[in-house]
């Protein structure tokens, strides 16, 4: 067994593919954070007074908060004064109106990432609001969307063009002082996406944003707000890649989803940020707050995520099930390799009667990675007939990695039904030998077993995203055995 175990342990060593830096001069603020920086960010974005005031209040609240330490992750203390809080491509002043006006270097970057924006967008019928560093560079398919009355734009634009919607919903799901990182984001958020689906409208296409962190030493603070009005339906895709880097990059995004009566939001993420090298150097810190509010009766919010990147992930996409009969879902695949750490999971808060939630979490650990599932199911006293089913599976590759499960349940209504299943398994040397004896290479065998393990989650992803996710998983685990 000895040789095969060693083989298993060395099978996790593939270099990050998208490791390159695009040479575009960035217009950055110097490192450091104070009220002046918050004002400067707001001024550069030509924000109205109310927005600045909102940011300043968040900043003051953040000053009084402490960084959380309960997560099962370890990292050197972050010096928030060594981070630059704003970077935008130089061409900010004259923003491109179409792809022709976009810096060719930027388009080249998209090409390297395999996302030739124009073609891919057209072929896949996807509208892409591409966030490059902090400023939205281009938005496509606007016409088709506006025909349907759908608003899909950068957050900055929404603040200017649709202030009444932004003021009504911003911070209504994730309050400014919700947690340390959410407060920081609220103070300094750079840009992000805004989506509004009007009453009864089924969004005619999948909405997709590619995030990319590119300026050295710049924390990226995205803000996403999606509002699905009564009886509407939207599917939103978020995918990320980032260039190789030496310093740790902090990413603290906030995503807020609001589903009104009979509305449905499906939010899918494929996250592939730079995880650091084999020693864990230079990876991205991903401290994200994602929360959906099923505000109306019969509403539904579904989170699907495939997480393969980042040095540290701290992320719990959650659902507040307020409306009667509302439904929350969480489907997750998280892969950690080398020295990656992930503490991720979800929260399902059952408030309304007959609310239902489903949690399917698949964790894969290889190398010396540590991974924790942390999930909370809370049933409030008024949530009669609430139901939850949680399934939490871990797959270990090699002997030096770890998987931990922290399920929390707080049930305050006797009619609730809550189920929790958990399994931990290993890819055994015998399974690999069996596959190899059938002519299948070790790497293909690992991919096959891993993909089999994740099947339940992948089937929740939109088709083209599922293919991408599967490929990404294979890349992430290449070299994990063999």
């Amino acid at each position, binding site marked *: 067994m000895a040789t095969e175990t060693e083989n298993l342990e060395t099978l996790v060593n593939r270099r990050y593919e998208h490791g390159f830096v695009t040479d575009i001069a960035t217009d950055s603020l110097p490192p450091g954070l104070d009220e002046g920086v918050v004002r400067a960010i707001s001024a550069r974005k030509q924000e109205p007074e109310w927005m600045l005031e909102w940011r300043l209040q968040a900043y003051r609240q953040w000053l009084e908060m402490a960084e959380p330490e309960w997560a099962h992750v370890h990292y050197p203390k972050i010096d928030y004064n060594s981070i630059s809080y704003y970077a935008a491509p130089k061409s900010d002043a004259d923003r491109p109106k179409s792809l022709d006006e976009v810096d060719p270097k930027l388009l080249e970057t998209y090409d390297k990432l395999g996302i030739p924006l124009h073609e891919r967008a057209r072929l896949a019928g996807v509208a892409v609001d591409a966030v490059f560093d902090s400023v939205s560079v281009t938005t496509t398919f606007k016409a088709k969307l506006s025909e349907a009355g759908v608003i899909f734009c950068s957050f900055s634009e929404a603040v200017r063009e649709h202030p009444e919607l932004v003021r009504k919903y911003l911070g209504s799901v994730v309050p400014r002082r919700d947690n340390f990182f959410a407060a920081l984001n609220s103070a300094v958020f750079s840009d992000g996406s805004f989506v509004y689906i009007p009453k009864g409208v089924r969004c005619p296409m999948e909405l997709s944003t590619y995030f990319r962190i590119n300026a050295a030493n710049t924390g990226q603070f995205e803000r996403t707000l999606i509002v699905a009005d009564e009886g509407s339906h939207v599917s939103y895709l978020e995918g990320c890649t980032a260039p190789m880097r030496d310093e740790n990059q902090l990413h603290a995004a906030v995503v807020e989803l609001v589903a009104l009566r009979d509305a449905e939001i499906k939010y899918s993420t494929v996250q592939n940020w730079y995880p650091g090298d084999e020693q864990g150097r230079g990876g991205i810190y991903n401290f994200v707050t994602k929360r959906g509010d099923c505000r109306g009766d019969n509403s539904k919010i579904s989170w699907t995520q495939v997480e393969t990147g980042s040095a540290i992930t701290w992320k719990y996409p959650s659902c507040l099930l307020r409306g009667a009969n509302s439904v929350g879902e969480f489907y997750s695949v998280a892969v950690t390799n080398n020295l990656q750490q992930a503490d991720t999971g979800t929260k399902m808060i059952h408030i309304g009667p007959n609310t239902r939630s489903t949690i399917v979490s698949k964790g894969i650990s290889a190398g010396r990675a540590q991974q924790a599932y942390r999930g909370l199911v809370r049933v409030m006293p008024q949530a009669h007939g609430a139901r939850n089913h949680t399934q939490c599976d871990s797959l270990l590759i090699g002997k030096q990695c770890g998987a931990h499960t922290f399920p929390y349940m707080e049930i305050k209504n006797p009619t609730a039904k809550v189920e929790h299943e958990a399994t931990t398994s290993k890819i055994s040397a015998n*399974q690999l030998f069996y596959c190899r*004896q059938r002519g*299948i290479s070790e790497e293909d065998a690992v991919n096959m077993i891993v993909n*089999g393990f994740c099947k339940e989650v992948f089937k929740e992803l939109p088709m083209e995203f599922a293919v991408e996710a599967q490929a990404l998983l294979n890349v992430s685990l290449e070299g994990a055995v063999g």
Partner: protein
Amino acid sequence: MLEIKDLKSRIGDTDILRGLSLSVNAGEVHAIMGPNGSGKSTLAQVIAGHEDYEVTGGSVTYKGLDLLELDPEIRAREGIFLGFQYPVEIPGVNNAYLLKAALNAKRKHRGEPEIDAFEFLKTAKEKMAALGMDPKFLNRGVNEGFSGGEKKRNEILQMAMLEPELAILDETDSGLDIDALKAVAAGVNALRSPDRAIILVTHYQRLLDYIQPDFVHVLSGGRIIRSGDKSLALELEAKGYDWVREAVGT
């Protein structure tokens, strides 16, 4: 086809094969018999390339290739099939998917195009019917929750689909009821051809009532101590393994 010379192998600190020689030609069926611990399964695993078994001496030539230099998957693609004594379960991996991946790996190795999905399904269903397997097994996880007999039939199905040149069946008869044994034997007999060789590793003579071997070898202490034809197996059955050991003075 297969030429084993003075093969020595150990697992950990324990020597198991101590100078085994065997020659197998295309078209032949060989039965390897012997008591528990004699090295039968080790021989099967070493031919397939299991890394836990260290080869400490001797040589194995297969179709003119130095077999011991090849990775297990290359050996498989070159036509070696091992029917496992204890087939592993691979939850979540679809049985049909594994089978197709195995077939295509072999085809790619030979420079052939991938198998057509429709043709694959048609062939698989025919072979399953012949083995008395429910086609539903195609869509289940590999060996996941299969009974002992179902696992063995599944091994034979894989063999039938992969059409190996050299098939080694390790105790495929153990734990089978008479119907399953007959189905498995029929599967093996269907594969017999002048281009193929089959090695049956077995503890009991029973299997050989259904699959007639050309040669029978008795393994003891990591060596072949006696070789003969089918009558040797019957004699063993009647007199027990001690009889051979005494006869050859080991």
